């Protein structure tokens, strides 16, 4: 187990009287990929948005860089080394891919820039506007930005949803590279097979809370998780 770099605890959030999260938690360990799995509407994205300061919780705390706060902003967390990639929403409409990298490297340096562009195979996309890219290309560019930024904590929401297997492989490799650089990578999604293969730690979001299931192999042994989330398919063991 690596040191915990980021933790959101006791998170609760209601929208118009409907409780989405009652007491959820999310955390990231250095050098590990942690994945939050759960059904649609189970509050995964809400928990991610709260954890990165885009949305404020009704209750709960965020612990990062030795500070524990009830309310944080993404800008503050980002200055401390966190990066948030929303599902296909990181890139700005109307701006070129190159403009995104220029902005990022002007702020955080270009140490990992070439490696990021090469490993995600986005050289040919650099002068294209982000709004003409396909979903898979947008996610590859987002993953390349994360790789170039090399944050201490990366929160990336549903990185493998709706993209081709080859793109999934490239994005997955980028996330593994970040973990190997001792970043805490926290992700979510529905593509259970790909995410179980990619992750080190599995959390399950259900009934307004999140459950620690351990390694992917341990998660596959969890009867309730298999019955209520994975279903009766062939899951290997």
């Amino acid at each position, binding site marked *: 187990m690596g040191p915990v770099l980021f933790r959101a605890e006791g998170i609760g959030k209601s929208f118009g009287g409907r409780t989405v999260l009652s007491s959820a938690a999310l955390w990231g360990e250095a050098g590990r990929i942690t994945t939050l799995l759960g059904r649609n509407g189970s509050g995964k994205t809400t928990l991610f948005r709260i954890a990165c*300061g*885009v949305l404020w919780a009704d209750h709960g705390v965020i612990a990062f860089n030795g500070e524990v706060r009830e309310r944080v*902003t*993404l*800008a*503050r967390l*980002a*200055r401390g080394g966190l*990066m*948030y990639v*929303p599902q296909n*929403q*990181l*890139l*700005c*409409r*109307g*701006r070129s891919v190159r*403009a*995104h990298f*220029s*902005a*990022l490297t*002007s*702020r955080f340096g270009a140490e990992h820039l070439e490696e990021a562009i090469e490993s995600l195979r986005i050289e040919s996309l650099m002068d294209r506007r982000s709004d003409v890219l396909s979903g898979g290309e947008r996610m590859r560019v987002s993953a390349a930005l994360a790789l170039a*930024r090399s944050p201490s904590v990366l929160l990336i929401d549903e990185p493998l949803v709706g993209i081709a297997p080859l793109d999934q492989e490239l994005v997955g490799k980028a996330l593994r590279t970040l973990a190997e650089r001792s970043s805490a990578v926290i992700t979510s999604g529905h593509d259970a097979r790909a995410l179980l293969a990619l992750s080190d730690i599995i959390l399950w979001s259900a009934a307004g809370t999140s459950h620690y299931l351990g390694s992917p192999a341990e998660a596959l042994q969890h009867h309730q998780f298999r019955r209520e989330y994975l279903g009766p398919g062939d899951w290997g063991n």
Partner: protein
Amino acid sequence: MLTFSPPSPFLGSIVVRTVLVWAFLRFMTAALGTFAEIPFLEGLAFSPLRFLWITAFVAGAVFADLRLHRENVFLANLGVSLWQILGLITLLCGGFEFLLWAWIRG
């Protein structure tokens, strides 16, 4: 200027958005004032109350446009907070008011 201020292309587009919305509002309020028999140049004169509501309106419009273009999350990932953007917009609106005041005084 500001630590973690927006990088230049983003800064430029915030300035352009601010100029356009501010100029439109200042011109429109002065033009509408003529219906109440307030001379056009008098309608352009500085008023603290008008400065406050125009700055608030400009900030609202710029934030909405940043959101529409998904620039808010990207800028936040660069460490740029909404407060810093609000500070920049207020500074710009104040600067434009000063230039307008200087121009009117001739």
